[in-house]
């Protein structure tokens, strides 16, 4: 009805992130942005336009454009965080995180521990993921590498409401937090490329935070628990929709954060459904789905009535040709078939 319509305030993930970052920068002078092409006048506002408008408000001092030097970007963020600043570092594509892996794994994640707890590293690293026909070096979902690094937190955002609440929580977190966002969900590319997914959600005007470490049940169901992130979440929901017609009720959960992982919410669902499927666009072997499956096989093995299934990108680099790319990443059809396979 019209009233509700009026109350509704639909934003894309890009807009929600921008708003969340702006709010935190207004709130805390220690927050600043640093990365490549983030603030250049007449430029892009970051590789996906998330920062458009921010330089005008905050100036070049707090929106820092860097050389193409990922080690320097990470090092600058780590060092500034150690001094009590709250940097938000930007990687244009998450594929480039490998260029500052030492800084993230050996420095950011370990500095506090090596100091005997005397220091902290309150930094955020934003990194876009996802296959968009750009090939092997511009489409990876490398979040699983980082769940293997004690000292780091790993967040995956999949809609505008949670994106804003999570980026704000990440900025306020006293640990290094990597925030992974899927390129097809920003909303900048439009629904078509995202396969018709509705890319905006209601974002309240009022300030709010979304806690890091709490999962959300996106669709309740009794037959099988499906854990998915990013665009795979929407494909899982689409599969769930179709399967409902066949009498299979999927409980679809968005973990929102991989480290820490909300096993309480996950296992409650698995104990109810007796079945678990994990879906991610990151590759299969050694992907975060393995960790979820391993913990389920330890912590709720006897609730399982079927093998734990993982639907992930196949273990190959990403090809450019759409036909091949669609084969590699999890599709609605593959998710659906896998779920049916364990629900007969």
């Amino acid at each position, binding site marked *: 009805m019209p009233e509700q319509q009026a109350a509704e305030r639909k934003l894309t993930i890009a807009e929600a992130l921008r708003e969340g970052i702006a709010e935190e920068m207004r709130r805390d002078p220690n927050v600043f942005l640093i990365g490549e092409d983030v603030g250049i006048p007449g430029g892009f506002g970051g590789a996906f336009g998330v920062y458009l408008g921010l330089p005008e408000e905050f100036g070049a001092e707090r929106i820092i454009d860097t050389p193409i030097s990922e080690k320097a970007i990470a090092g600058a963020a780590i060092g500034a965080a150690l001094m009590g600043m709250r940097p938000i570092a930007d990687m244009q594509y998450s594929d480039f995180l490998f260029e500052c892996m030492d800084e993230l794994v050996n420095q950011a994640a370990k500095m506090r521990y090596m100091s005997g707890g005397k220091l902290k590293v309150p930094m955020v690293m934003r990194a876009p993921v996802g296959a968009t026909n750009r090939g092997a070096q511009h489409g990876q979902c490398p979040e699983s590498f980082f769940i293997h690094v004690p000292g780091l937190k790993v967040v995956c955002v999949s809609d505008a409401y949670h994106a804003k609440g999570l980026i704000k929580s990440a900025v306020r977190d006293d640990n290094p937090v990597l925030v992974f966002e899927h390129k097809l969900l920003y909303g900048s590319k439009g629904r078509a490329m995202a396969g018709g997914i509705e890319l905006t959600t209601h974002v309240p005007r009022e300030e709010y935070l979304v806690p890091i470490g709490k999962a959300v049940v996106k669709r309740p169901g009794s037959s099988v628990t499906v854990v998915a992130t990013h665009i795979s979440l929407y494909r899982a929901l689409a599969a769930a929709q179709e399967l409902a017609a066949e009498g299979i009720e999927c409980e679809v959960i968005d973990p929102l954060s991989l480290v820490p992982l909300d096993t309480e919410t996950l296992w409650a669902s698995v104990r109810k459904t007796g079945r678990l499927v994990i879906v991610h666009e990151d590759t299969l072997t050694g992907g975060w789905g393995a960790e979820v499956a391993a913990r389920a096989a330890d912590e709720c093995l006897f609730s399982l009535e079927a093998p734990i299934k993982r639907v992930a990108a196949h273990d190959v*680099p990403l090809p*450019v*040709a*759409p036909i091949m790319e669609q084969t590699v990443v999890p599709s609605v059809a593959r998710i659906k078939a896998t779920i049916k396979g364990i629900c007969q």
Partner: protein
Amino acid sequence: MDYFDRQPTDKLLHLYCQLLLLRLFEERVYHVFLQGELPGTLHQYQGQEAVAVGVCDHLSHTDWITSTHRPHGHAIAKGVSSRAAMAELYGKATGCCGGKGGSMHLGDPAVGMLPAIAIVGGGNSVVIGLGLAFKLRKTQQAAVCFFGDGATNEGAFHESLNFAAVQNLPIVFVCENNLYGASTAYHKVSRVTDVAERAKAYGVPGVIVDGMDVLAVHQSAAEALAQARAGNGPILLECKTYRFIGHSRSDARGYRSKEEEAEWKARDPINTLGGRLLGSSRATEAQLGAIEASVVAELDDAVEFSRNSPDTTPEMALEDAYA
């Protein structure tokens, strides 16, 4: 008698033809991209043709090059057929990388070009291995690493040039300084204006070249490659150039002025060579027109070939991760 005058006419016409091929290839690619025939995105080469053409004219298929996210020009100049290159952009099975590489990974081992590396600085890391192999095998092969001004701020640029220097590797590092890395002007990310200045830090010669003049590039590249093949180690060529188009297909270029663009476009390498050919009566309008016609025909054929080429199959996607 200057370098131009010393060149036989067929050489000059060949260079002209190559410049035109690179330019019209990119224009055709952009055209079909806008028609929605190509997947992904594009980083194009218009304006920088003199660099790829001037350097690659000295290379045989046993010499190897590495390229970047902006590889179309390098690929064509190194000898990848316009059919194989175009089909790759179409994501067809007949493409030079079987549809797996696409625009940012264009390349073909058959002509001595690695799949282009789209990680800025990535080619700088890998090229030293090519040079090392040539050195260990005592061949006369040389390797050329093409990279941009932006890449010079990556750690890979530093480690690679230093390694090549201490190992005396037969590598020519060709920096295409087109003034910008994406939207970022080089002067904002380096206190030194000339990339060539940085070569001194490694005891390597750094040479500044007019990257808009194919003959200037041709001459400097000849000397640099001779040095490299002679076992004197790497050389850094900084080619001052400019991309006439946006960084990638969705770039309004608001970070640079129309005046600046106009100045550089006035130095279009194709017009420059064409003008000298006509001015020196080395060629007639008719000859240049015939060259253009042949290039256009080649590109018509490349597009037709690509459109009619078989698509890739789902099975193919799962092949080639391992040997």
